[in-house]
């Protein structure tokens, strides 16, 4: 068998090369879980087509690309850094190639917010981070999270204390500096204190066009009666490989509200797992994705309704041109005791080219009998009648298509409550339509 540059062995070699210089290498418990997780990764290996959760997303393009072991060098900023929101309405934290940059981040955080970099916390060794907080409920299904745990070098630990209503948005920039073939495994933790409200927007962007591999894992807890709006603009370059796994625990009366706008990366996989284990907990998992050329976008979600009176809404819309491929896997599990669950899921894809493809796998597993659940998946071409109608009024083929696609995607953005961010997402959608010429066949 041919050994590909980034097969399992390559990542294990990364671990061997870097374990002595990873942050917190003097902490015995940490070294132990790193070792345990690399062993788990060694057992499972990289996901393949036979891995149920990765049935439609092949990592072969990743395996064919050589990557170097993660580096912990100081980030260097050269050009101006992208910013989604102005500094009056946001504070920005900056990560470059996966490493936190204190110098480039805004220095003052709003009252009630603390942020520590994972590297600093592990090196200081004096945090309450422990084995339990870094373990996942279904670790054996998540080999890339295991790899992340073994190799995590930085990330953020963001805490919002209780009874805080943040006016400013926390913007987190994940910038690729253009350093070729780098890999980064970031680990993030967000906790929102009870009765607090916060908006976090993450932004993936790049200075270069080179390939790199970002493997992120984020653990979120939204405590009693709190609301977290967690948005993400994924606009990486089209050679990048981005894999992320987010695990969310929603408390009593609390809401986790997420929106993903995905336009970038050669391959992007966003996995979000939400546990609704307390009464009146709710989640919204919304998003839009746009792909062209040979881009691949995978959105995989799982919502566990574990107690009565929990709610989940999910609206995802995608548009694919060129040879792009979209994947949507949405699992809703209503556990036996979770009566009065409301779960609604919808995924709609529009294919602008004959060679674009979308694979969907909606799954409802319902073990309770008094629930309201719905799911719907559709995919199709642009409406030819509508196209002709618009053209007959003077719009060019391109303008008409752009107007229709825009309207299709904008509908999903309606779910975003923050008007500034809603506008920002709509502009991103228009920009994408303007910059990605329609490729009908």
């Amino acid at each position, binding site marked *: 068998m041919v050994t590909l540059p980034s097969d399992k062995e390559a990542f294990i070699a990364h671990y061997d090369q870097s374990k002595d210089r990873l942050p917190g290498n003097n902490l015995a418990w940490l070294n132990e879980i790193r070792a345990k997780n690399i062993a788990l990764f060694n057992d499972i290996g990289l996901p393949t087509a036979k891995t149920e959760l990765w049935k439609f997303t092949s990592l072969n393009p990743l395996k064919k690309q050589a990557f170097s072991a993660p580096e912990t060098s100081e980030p260097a900023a050269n050009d101006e850094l992208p910013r989604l929101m102005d500094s009056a309405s946001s504070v920005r934290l900056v990560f470059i190639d996966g490493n936190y940059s204190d110098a480039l981040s805004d220095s003052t955080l709003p009252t009630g917010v603390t942020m520590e970099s994972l590297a600093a916390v592990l090196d200081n060794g004096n945090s309450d981070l422990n084995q339990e907080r870094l373990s996942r409920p279904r670790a054996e299904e998540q080999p890339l999270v295991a790899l992340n745990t073994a190799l995590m070098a930085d990330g953020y630990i963001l805490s919002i204390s209780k009874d805080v209503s943040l006016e400013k948005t926390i913007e987190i920039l994940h910038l690729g500096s253009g350093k070729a073939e780098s890999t980064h495994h970031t680990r993030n933790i967000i906790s929102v204190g009870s009765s607090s409200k916060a908006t976090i927007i993450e932004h993936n962007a790049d200075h270069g066009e080179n390939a790199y591999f970002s493997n992120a894992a984020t653990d979120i807890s939204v405590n009693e009666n709190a609301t977290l709006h967690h948005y993400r603009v994924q606009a990486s370059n089209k050679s990048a490989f981005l894999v992320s796994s987010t695990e969310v625990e929603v408390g009593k009366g609390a809401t986790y509200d997420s929106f993903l706008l995905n336009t970038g990366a050669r391959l992007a996989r966003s996995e979000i797992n939400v546990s609704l284990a307390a009464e009146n907990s709710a989640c919204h998992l919304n998003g839009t994705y746009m792909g062209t050329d040979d881009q691949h976008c995978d959105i995989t979600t799982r919502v566990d309704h574990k107690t009565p009176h929990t709610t989940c809404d999910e609206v995802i819309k995608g548009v694919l041109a060129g040879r792009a491929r979209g994947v949507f896997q949405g699992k809703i599990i209503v556990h036996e005791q979770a009566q009065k669950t409301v779960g609604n899921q919808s995924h709609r894809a529009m294919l602008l080219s004959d060679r674009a493809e979308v694979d969907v796998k909606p799954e409802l597993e319902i073990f309770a009998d008094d629930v309201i659940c719905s799911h719907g998946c559709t995919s199709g071409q642009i409406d030819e009648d509508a196209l002709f109608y618009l053209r*007959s009024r003077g719009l060019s083929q391109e303008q008409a298509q752009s107007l229709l696609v825009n309207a299709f995607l904008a509908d999903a953005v309606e779910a975003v409550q923050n008007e500034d961010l809603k506008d920002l997402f709509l502009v991103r959608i228009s920009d994408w339509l303007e910059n990605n010429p329609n490729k009908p066949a």
Partner: protein
Amino acid sequence: MLEIKNLHAEVDGKSILQGIDLNINKGEVHAIMGPNGSGKSTLANVLAGRDDYEVTEGGIFFDGKDISELEPEERAGEGIFLAFQYPVEIPGVTNTTFLKEALNAQRRYRGEEELDGMEFVKMIRGKTKELGIKDDMLKRAVNVGFSGGEKKRNDILQMAVLNPKLAVLDETDSGLDIDALKVVAEGVNKLRAENNAILVITHYQRLLNYIVPDQVHVLANGKIRRSGGKELALELEEKGYADYSGEAA
């Protein structure tokens, strides 16, 4: 203004129009009547330039220019407007956005200045007032959730804004009750002028009570079989199309 010469057209390889000749001058209203399957809607779509309709022989001349190879949007820019039998719903696009984009696209095509937001709003307010259309219709998504009558009124509004030289009304009376029909006809009549023309395509005579044509043509089996004044419509109403349906091309 419009000259159709020996027009042959096919849809999916099936020959539908088999040699149509028709002249429409400025300021005239013509009606084309015919039984189902006679080619009425095909003619409307061919005039507007729909993709699947292929002209195989003859030509369409508009102000002396052969337009049979032009794209639908180019024909719109030349001044042809098709009111659809069933106006299409466009979710997520408001009437205002749609009308502004359409008008400015046509103005660009003709090398005219585009209207800015303010100019457009002023213009459209004038049109809605003139036609007695409520402004809230402008904020609604194009035809979404509109009743049959509202959709047709929306077409009239589009006509008023785009001010075409030739309006082709394809079975505009479909699905309208008599009150809605009157309102739509009234709108069309308001837009009649010396320098534009209207082609009404219909199965029934009743629309022609309200939009009175200068000439009536009977289309059957892909050809115009007879032409005459408005009294021809009344004759058809009485006798039906039996005299024409037997004739093979």
